[in-house]
């Protein structure tokens, strides 16, 4: 199962990493998530998800350069791996195929 299925929040995090391109590190991901979803993204949760994604090798990470900010501690930047991209695309396709078979009237008026 591992590596094939994406949880809802995992997918969001993965998408955010992809969106942030070169600036994807934990705090920035949290902020971006909050901005787009409108719900509070706790660092603890995001951190755990990042760790899990890396375990599933959907993302990879490297440490940046030291700066005087953050008490001199380096940032860990994330980027989406090939497997991650495949998983994202697959998730999107699943959704779209489902959207396509919904008769138009069924969801009308709910927007």
């Amino acid at each position, binding site marked *: 199962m591992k590596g094939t299925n994406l949880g809802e929040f995992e997918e969001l995090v993965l998408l955010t990493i992809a969106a942030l391109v070169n600036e994807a590190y*934990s705090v920035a991901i949290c902020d971006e998530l909050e901005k787009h979803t409108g719900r509070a993204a706790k660092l603890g949760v995001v951190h755990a998800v990042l760790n899990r994604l890396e375990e599933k090798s959907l993302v990879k990470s490297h440490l940046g350069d030291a700066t005087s900010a953050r008490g001199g501690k380096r940032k860990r930047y994330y980027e989406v791996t090939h497997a991650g991209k495949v998983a994202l695309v697959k998730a999107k396709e699943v959704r779209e195929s489902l959207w396509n078979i919904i008769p138009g009237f069924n969801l009308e008026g709910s927007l």
Partner: protein
Amino acid sequence: MNRIDPSESRTNLPKMPGPPRWAQRLLEWYCRPDLLEDLQGDLNEYFDRNRTTKGDRKARWIYCLDVLKFFRPYTIRKPDFINLLIHWIMLGSYLKTSRRSLVRNKLFSLINIVGLAVSMSVGLLVISFVADILAYDDFHEKKDRIFRVITTFKTPEQPQVDLASTSVKIGKQLRQTVSGIEEVTILRNGFGGDARVGEATIPLGGLWADASFFRVFTFPLLEGNPATALKNPYSLVLTEKTAKKLFGEVDPLGKTVRLDTLTYTVTGLLKDVPKLSHIQFDALASFSTAESLFARQDPNFYGWDNIWQNYVYMVLPESTRPESVLRSLTGFNKAENSRITNRTVSVSLQPLREASLGPKLHNAIGPTMIPLVVWVLIGLAMVIILSACFNYTNLSIARSLRRSREVGVRKIMGALKSHVLGQFLAESILIALLALVVSLGLFLFLRTQFLALDPFIDNLVSLEFSGRVIGSFILLALVVGLIAGVLPALFFSRIKPVLVLRDSSTLKIFRRVTLRKTLIILQYTFSLIFITTTLIGYAQYRSFLTFDLGFTTENILNINLKGNKGTVLANELRQIPGVVEVSKSLLVTSLGSIGGTTMKYKNSQDSALVWLNTVDEHYLPIHRHKLLAGTNFTRHPKTAQEESEIIVNEQVLKRFNIAKQNPQKALGEQVVVDKKKLTIVGVLKDFHYGTMENKIEPHMFRYFTDEAGGYLNVKVATTDLPATLASVEEAWRTVDKVHPMEAKFYDDQIEEAYRQFSIMIRIIGFVAVLAVCIAFLGLLGMVVFTTETRLKEISIRKVLGASEGGLVYLLSRNFLGLLLLAAFVALPATYLFFDQVVLVNFAYHRPIGLTELMIGVLIVMMPAFLMIVSQTLKAARKNPANVLKSE
């Protein structure tokens, strides 16, 4: 190794205070190294952000919370096996250096080991005591589900009485009307007497118990059927020991035993009752016997307020919560109390374990230990043990100079901080284990002393070893080693090797002086508190014994009549040359046993409880009670119906305002007691009836007609006491051949009445002596060390012309200051404690004397003072040439 990160310290220092250090450390400690840096950075970023938006405090708080929240399986560092392995490999080296340092400093090792051993032996005693108390009633299979019905009795006039006993009625009602109870059993005390089998007569004590007894409690039957053994009237179940006494080796089942006029059949043989059981008995008789015996005589046998002799225990099924039973009990309380006037009887539930360790209840069926006593004992042991730990801590840190080089070399060879920490903890634990061996020997000695302190303690506990107890002993040693060693170990682990090896004098051994001073002050404060407590307690105890009770107790021998009629024996005794006079009384007062009944005067609505003793006409002269007015009993009726006279004390006049409290005019007035009109023939000066805890209250003497029971009070005046006592015993044997005579001098009985008090004093006194000794040892170590370290300084001062007296003053000044400070803390604390907490419980007590406080100070301070002066003098007298030469 100490890794210093210069960039970090430089960026952090000049700014505002950063996140809490301990939280940062915690994170560093638990977090996996590959995740650590990023995580620290994230938290720092959030911290900075929070500081600007939410303020400094909040930001720090959130930081701490986050650090704790990140403690998750995926962030935790895997244990460092290499490190553990190194510890294991190095263990031999640690042991070797520890042994060497122990042998090199014999005085300090001795102080440490002796101090720890002595204090731990007290700890061992308390552990085994507490273990025994907690093991009470452990053998019952359903122990967690057994509950007891307890009772509260209240009248408008008296404070409420809490009882372990209850009514038969509640037992029956629970059994019949309340569902969800597995089993109910009713017990009744007072079964017993002289059991006769053929020619043999043996006194027997036990309980009445009904047929469900064996379904509630786990007392295994060796013979007989547990379901039916206690069913029929006149059935008797014996313990093995009793059976052996009565029948020898013969199988007792089916045999008969005569008690008084009744014949019982033995229906069961029990294994002996374990010592740690709150229910103790020689024999059980079926409850149906008690019902057939008493229910006819006593119309109130099944009454709601007949709560003095019966015990009700129940087993609840696992699914039932005690609250549901409690609800039905509250229902019974309400319904039944509406039917009785002038008093309320309320029942509630108590789990089985509180029967042995719980609140003090009257009519307790077995020994009860109140939790406070247990806590006090634990507290005393803790103080003593901590005191010995302080010694270790103090001496180790003080002597760190000697071992800092070793640590320096170890660190240079590659030892990490944690290795040094481990080494010194291992050393202190090793010493604690050594001390444990010594303390085991001391414990065996202490145990016999403790058990011999009082028969109550001997009955209560056995203090035997068990696996659990021995495990706790070892645990205690480990904990003691950790507590004693943690500060020195931390101290050594922080030593910077480069500095130490270059110049050992840079080591700041005097940096922790405040800590060491505080520890010494603490030790001496506790020692002083204990000593003064002992002295004050002892002074009070003496004053209780010599207190003027308002009558004399001198040379009066009280003989328990054990149910015999007293007249014959009294006449026999009067024939003995050494006996002056003999009187008879129902009670021996001022010992704590009391009895009273209600009295009414003219107003039939106004009744009050008046304490009572029934005596004969010789009682007042023998005890030299002072009559304010009137006479002794003038009529000596033979039966209770003819009784017509009463003698009262001043308090009775005051309570009922009889004749405006004028003793002369009160004579001839009539009061109603037990529905009888009695005339006051004498008024006595107030005297003490209860113990020192009770105020003097209304009291009356009634005439003791020729009934069985009570006591004989024999006034003895003889030069040959043993001979007189022998003839008294001979006279006893002509009257009662079964029971051994039980005679005690009144003064001895008073001493016994305050026995609990004296036991407490002895225990605290013992602890006080230990505390003083341990504190003394610690101080000795410190003084020796300080003078040794300053020997060179002293020599130079001497060369430059300092006098010996001046040097002694210089060296001892600090220590004496500490002792004085300790005295300033301890003395007011003790005084307030006694004045506000202890002595308020005693209606009559002598004021706290300053002498006791001063003597306490002297006992503690004198040895310390002498030791300080002698040690410093020794140092001051050293020849400076020798000291300075041997560089």
